[in-house]
């Protein structure tokens, strides 16, 4: 196939590993710390261990692809005996059975990307019963750290919303009308990213009016459709906050099809940091992208190593997400996923 279409990334998610690597923030690590003894897990050498990874959603969006790939790569690098992977396909009951299945198959250490903050308790209990440590990544669960699970690695979604608000305020000058393209209803990520954004706007730029909040279900076509409706009924909108890149790109398409200049007539800020979005940013079609870094592999395995080496692991290991803007987009493209 010649260049009539192009895959989102030329070099898939491995990308520029160095540029895209996660960094923890010292201030972000919090909590008392959890060690092998306090957790009560048996000592283990990762090299002879069976490690299980439970992914929450289909590997059909860049974030999930990059996340799973990163875990797989790092597992290979760490030389674990066997890596089991499962995918809950957005079904919470399936994630519970997935985890139970992996335990039944002899998993000794689990990395879980939870589908939801609540409701995984039976899975955690099953792991605890077998004294298998669980490391949760990317989405925090409402459970007892160091009891139900070992520790949480990931971003702070509320903060992502706040940073998006800051970027929006900067792009619009703190006034005008903005629309929010919400993620899927009932989802914690949606709730947090909305809360951060709305609160920050209220606090910092009361003149920036939020005139529409409609769900685009984290999908590009839905985002496009909602945006098209808004363009017609609320032509005064000058800013769009999309809770993920896909919906942001949908908004870009919608605006272009309606002869409006995305990035100029309507400012667009989104969250994720996918390569497509950063490219759009570089072209000036978007205004800012708040990163949510999916490459948890290295950090997760490093944490596991530390844990088995006897070091206490903090309850939350928060990572620093970058922020792309029109200036740094071009050069940061390598770090996008």
């Amino acid at each position, binding site marked *: 196939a010649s260049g009539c279409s192009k895959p*989102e990334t030329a070099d898939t998610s491995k990308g520029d590993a160095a540029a895209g690597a996660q960094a923890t923030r010292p201030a972000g690590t919090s909590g008392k710390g959890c060690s092998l003894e306090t957790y009560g897990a048996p000592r283990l050498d990762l090299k002879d261990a069976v490690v299980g990874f439970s992914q929450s959603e289909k590997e059909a969006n860049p974030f999930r692809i990059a996340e799973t790939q990163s875990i797989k790569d790092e597992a290979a690098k760490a030389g674990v005996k066997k890596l089991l992977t499962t995918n809950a396909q957005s079904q919470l009951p399936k994630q519970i059975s997935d985890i139970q299945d992996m335990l039944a198959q002899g998993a000794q250490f689990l990395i879980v990307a939870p589908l939801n903050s609540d409701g995984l308790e039976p899975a955690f209990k099953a792991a605890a019963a077998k004294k298998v440590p669980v490391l949760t990544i990317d989405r925090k669960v409402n459970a007892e750290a160091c009891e139900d699970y070992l520790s949480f690695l990931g971003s702070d979604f509320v903060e992502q919303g706040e940073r998006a608000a800051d970027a929006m305020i900067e792009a619009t000058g703190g006034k005008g009308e903005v629309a929010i393209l919400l993620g899927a209803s009932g989802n914690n990520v949606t709730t947090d990213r909305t809360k951060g954004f709305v609160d920050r706007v209220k606090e910092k730029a009361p003149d920036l009016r939020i*005139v529409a909040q409609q769900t685009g279900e984290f*999908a*590009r*076509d839905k985002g496009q459709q909602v945006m098209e*409706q808004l363009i017609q*009924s609320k032509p005064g909108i000058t800013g769009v906050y999309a809770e993920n890149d896909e919906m942001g790109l949908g908004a870009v398409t919608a605006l272009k099809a309606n002869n409006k200049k995305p990035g100029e007539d309507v400012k667009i800020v989104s969250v994720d940091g996918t390569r*497509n979005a950063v490219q759009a940013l570089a072209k000036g079609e978007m205004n800012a992208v708040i990163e949510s870094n999916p490459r948890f592999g290295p950090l997760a395995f490093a944490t596991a190593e530390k844990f088995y080496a006897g070091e206490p692991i903090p309850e939350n290991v928060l990572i620093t997400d970058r922020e792309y803007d029109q200036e740094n987009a071009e050069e940061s493209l390598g770090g996008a996923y």
Partner: protein
Amino acid sequence: MTQAPATAPGPAAPPASAPSSPAAGRARPWYRDPAWYQAYGVYVAVGVLLLFNALFTDRFLTTGNLTTQLVQVAPVVIVALGMALVIGTEGVDLSVGSAMALAAALLPLYLGHGLVPALVLALLAGAVTGLVNGVLVSVVGLQPIVATLALFVGGRGLALVLADGRLKQIINPDLLSLGTASLLGVPVVVLVAAGLALAVAFLVARTTFGRQIVAVGGNREAAVLAGLPVKRVLTGVYVLCGTFAALAGVLATARLTASDPSSLGTLMELSAITAVVVGGTPLSGGSVRVLGTVAGAVLMQLLRATLVKHDLPDSTAQIAQAAIIVAAVHIARERRSR
């Protein structure tokens, strides 16, 4: 008997007793006739919703906005047309969303050879999914819902495998113009949907195949004994449905400027079935209402647009949608004469 029955065609003697009942019921005014509502209920509902929006929604009656609604509803209409045919045979096709995804996934793979080969291939993929469904239903004899469930589950997986799980930006100008171009101010997408609606209406009303669809749905056993090619009709209907879905997938992809097999067409089966049923085609088969189906799709589109434009939160929007659907179907419901 007044006369021997005439066996030869030709002008026969006047009927011995009038074939039609002489005592036909006095016509009721249309607004008091339940049958009228049953026949035109969807259109009434569409009218009411249009009126509501014209009065209470800002900038609703603008060309731009109306065009947007038509453009958005076009893929649903196309899929629903195929679905209406399937439902006419007392079947159902859950795999339409997957067929859309398959078409979308195949497009970028073959765009390198030009738009036409890629298009043909995408449509062919839809036809093949339909063929599989059709064979499972007509030859193997599975219940349609299970037969199409397999591709509903597996088809999208296959699409994702083909696309390597990711969305691909489309930059082929020909394909893109399919999504954005318009003819005499009407977007091509809308024209395609409208043309297809007319074609299907003609198919159902005036072709042997169309009438056979309805007969198979109305009484399968009788159709078999009347020598109709029941298996062929069933298979054909699913092939058409799959092909239409693939076409919708192509158009949606062109409009999205990206091939997105992971989310394109999700829940399309529900939207399409809803459009068909709201449009007055019974799920029990035996009749196909093409224009009703189009109206049903438009009704649901307007409903969604209304809720978005009034910026209702999701909770309220869903409850309102539920209430309005029930109300609309209630006007159009079949009243049994008793």
